[in-house]
């Protein structure tokens, strides 16, 4: 089959690789109909995520038609059958361990193969769940930017999509929509709250929508791409362009001197901008001087949030960052919440909201391309972020 593969920094290729097959009893194989490039794929594209290997198939936002079902899934009530259309959560979860029982699906004990867990242990303390196409530390599973994909625990993750609902409408249930939703949930929003969101990429934009749905009175969106800020404004957010204003000063002004009740860092490890802290991070990150992150947005968010406020971090960080304002966390009494998304916890509920028309998803897609044009999609999504808000690839 054809698949989009990683070959190093800024080197994506479409290769012919072996077709996936059922390996474990609870596997299913799907024929991919739509797959998207995620902002977190760009971290991999930039060579920022450790333990990728040349030839790895990327992609963790994908959906398609069930082609083959393992003996452990066949006939199981509620499990997908051959021919079903499904969306596939990017977190692989067994559904029966301590963590899955607590609906902490992205912390599943059993989906990361044992040797790969050793790598995660060394870097993170304990291994989280395996993910599709997102490094060997996190599973080493082939991703979904391909014609076919093997989906482990096919009876737990995939959500069956009713006929007649367009792919574009539901594709983002795989990652960014639940991620934006969980970011807002983690922000512990109470009715009347003001929420500030750093980064108006797909996750930030879904966080804006979710925050309003959870009762936020005001949402302030921060970015530097005019088009992305426009999209945020479309959902009713006030906007701040950090090239035009000093963000912390502006936020304090806009919140009557108190600061936002909750802040969401939807930027992650590769912050843009030319602030001194970010430039220093850039140098130490590039030279690998004990620093893997550029957490400018997180620093700013921690300092900007009001006393006793909540900091929610959906942005991806991979290793060790420097100069985090710990004093502000302690002395302002902040709550910090984060995590890879427990996608399986949200898919059914969010699907319903999409079908009801409560949440808009298709506004995000700026480019639709064939799988063969995937490398172009990466390049554009990376270098023309104002034009490219979301790239969806159609394998056939």
């Amino acid at each position: 089959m054809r698949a989009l593969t990683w070959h190093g920094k800024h080197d994506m290729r479409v290769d012919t690789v072996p077709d996936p097959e059922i390996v474990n009893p609870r596997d299913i194989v799907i024929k991919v109909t739509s797959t998207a490039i995620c902002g977190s794929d760009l971290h991999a594209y930039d060579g920022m995520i450790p333990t990728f290997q040349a030839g790895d198939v990327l992609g963790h936002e994908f959906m398609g038609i069930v082609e083959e079902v393992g003996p452990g899934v066949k006939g199981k009530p509620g499990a997908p059958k051959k021919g079903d259309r499904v969306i596939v959560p990017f977190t692989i979860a067994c559904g029966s361990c301590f963590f899955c029982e607590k609906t902490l699906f992205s912390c599943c004990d059993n989906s990361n193969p044992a040797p790969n867990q050793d790598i995660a242990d060394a870097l993170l303390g304990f291994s989280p769940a395996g993910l599709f196409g997102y490094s060997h530390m996190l599973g080493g599973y082939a991703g979904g930017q391909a014609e076919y994909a093997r989906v482990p625990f096919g009876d737990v993750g995939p959500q069956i999509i009713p006929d007649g609902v367009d792919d574009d409408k539901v594709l983002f249930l795989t990652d960014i929509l639940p991620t934006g939703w969980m970011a807002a949930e983690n922000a512990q929003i109470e009715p009347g709250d003001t929420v500030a969101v750093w980064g108006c990429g797909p996750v930030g934009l879904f966080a804006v929508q979710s925050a309003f749905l959870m009762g936020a009175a005001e949402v302030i969106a921060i970015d530097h791409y005019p088009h992305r800020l426009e999209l945020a404004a479309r959902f009713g957010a006030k906007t701040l362009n950090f090239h035009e204003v000093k963000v912390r000063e502006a936020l304090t002004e806009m919140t009557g001197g108190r600061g936002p009740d909750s802040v969401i860092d939807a930027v992650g490890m590769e912050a843009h901008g030319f602030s001194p802290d970010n430039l220093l991070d850039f140098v130490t990150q590039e030279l690998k001087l004990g620093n893997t992150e550029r957490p400018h947005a997180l620093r700013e968010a921690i300092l900007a949030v009001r006393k006793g406020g909540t900091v929610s971090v959906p942005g991806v960080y991979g290793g060790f960052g420097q100069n985090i304002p710990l004093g502000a966390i302690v002395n302002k009494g902040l709550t910090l919440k984060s995590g890879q998304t427990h996608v399986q916890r949200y898919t059914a509920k969010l699907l319903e909201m999409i079908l009801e028309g409560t949440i808009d998803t298709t506004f995000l897609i700026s480019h639709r391309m064939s799988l063969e044009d995937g490398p172009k999609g990466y390049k554009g999504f990376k270098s023309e972020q104002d034009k490219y808000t979301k790239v969806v690839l159609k394998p056939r």
Partner: protein
Amino acid sequence: MWVLERVAALRAREDRVGPAAARGFGVFSLGLGLAELLAPGALKGALGLRHPSDEVVRAAYGAREFGVGAALLAQPHRPEWMWARVAGDALDIATLIAGDRSDNPKRTTLRSALAGMLAITAADVALALRLSRPDPATGLFGRELPGVARVRGAAGMMGEHLTKKLHLTKKAHLTKKAHLAKKVLPAAVLLARRARLNDKRVLAGGGAALVLGAAAVTLAVLNAKKTKGGTSDMPQKGAIERAVTVNMPRQALYAQWRDFARAPRWMEIVESVSETGEGHHWVVRGPGDKRIEYDTVITEDRPGEVLAWESVKGATVRSTNRLEFRDAPGGRGTEIHATMTYHPPGGPLGKVAALVTQKAPELQVRRDLRRFKQLMETGEIATTEGPGAAPSGRDKVKQ
């Protein structure tokens, strides 16, 4: 105090291990040197080194290797020869790095050779350092060049100062180092094997880390207390302990383990286990996929609580194993506590080899427990093996 203690320890022990190991390296050097001398082309071909002059150079390398080997055999007490080996290692590493080009068809082999070279260098450095310690009789660094002795003396005093400052006893110091190395090295090796080593900086950095790590492990292993006695007198010190919590009742988990023939399902390096009457016969894959066979007997068997077994007297692999099954607090399944000791064939170097090749029991016991947990909780063992399942078409690491 640290230096004095060390001198006293040396005096008491009469360093026999060091020179013995040096002799071992001597034989190794002789062999490799001879191979390089007699068939320089073969090695060159195997590693994809392309310059015609490589053959001549390789032969010269062989002569050097052979010479050092002979010297080591003749004078295993002299650290100079070990340092000569280290210098030679550096040359070899430089040659290999120079050959690490994207157009080299044998790049993978070359990198494996490089990894091996780094590990060997680490062991060489460790041994050279050991042989360079002060003379137990005079307390002087008499076996080194005078300048080196002075530097080492100063370094030793700084070490002593640091040790005092950090309130570390020497033992704690070493145990800590060994502990850290044991944790970091396997992960580093795995990373190096899996990560894309596409640029020289990464390679150099990883290499340096590997050398340091391997040196620390070798030192720790060489410094480990020697214990005498047969299989029934296993030292409990240095036992490997791992625990895992499984979301299932004790009895069921115990029953799975008690049926030893099932073990290969979750024990990665175990090929088969069969009943022998008194106990079990194990066939496992060691470093380099070498087949190792040994017999064990059950030493403790309390259904649902404890299962322990150990190797019989005179077995190739000497090991003790104990599994304890306990109810996790709050009704959250079962904690399995595994304790094991082992002595692989090849002694200390065997242990290093096992670590580097990912066959070490400290790794295996942890991974095996996890695989067992996965099998029990989900009915399968997570894997990226199988057609199209491994993300990379070219590199399917056997897991």
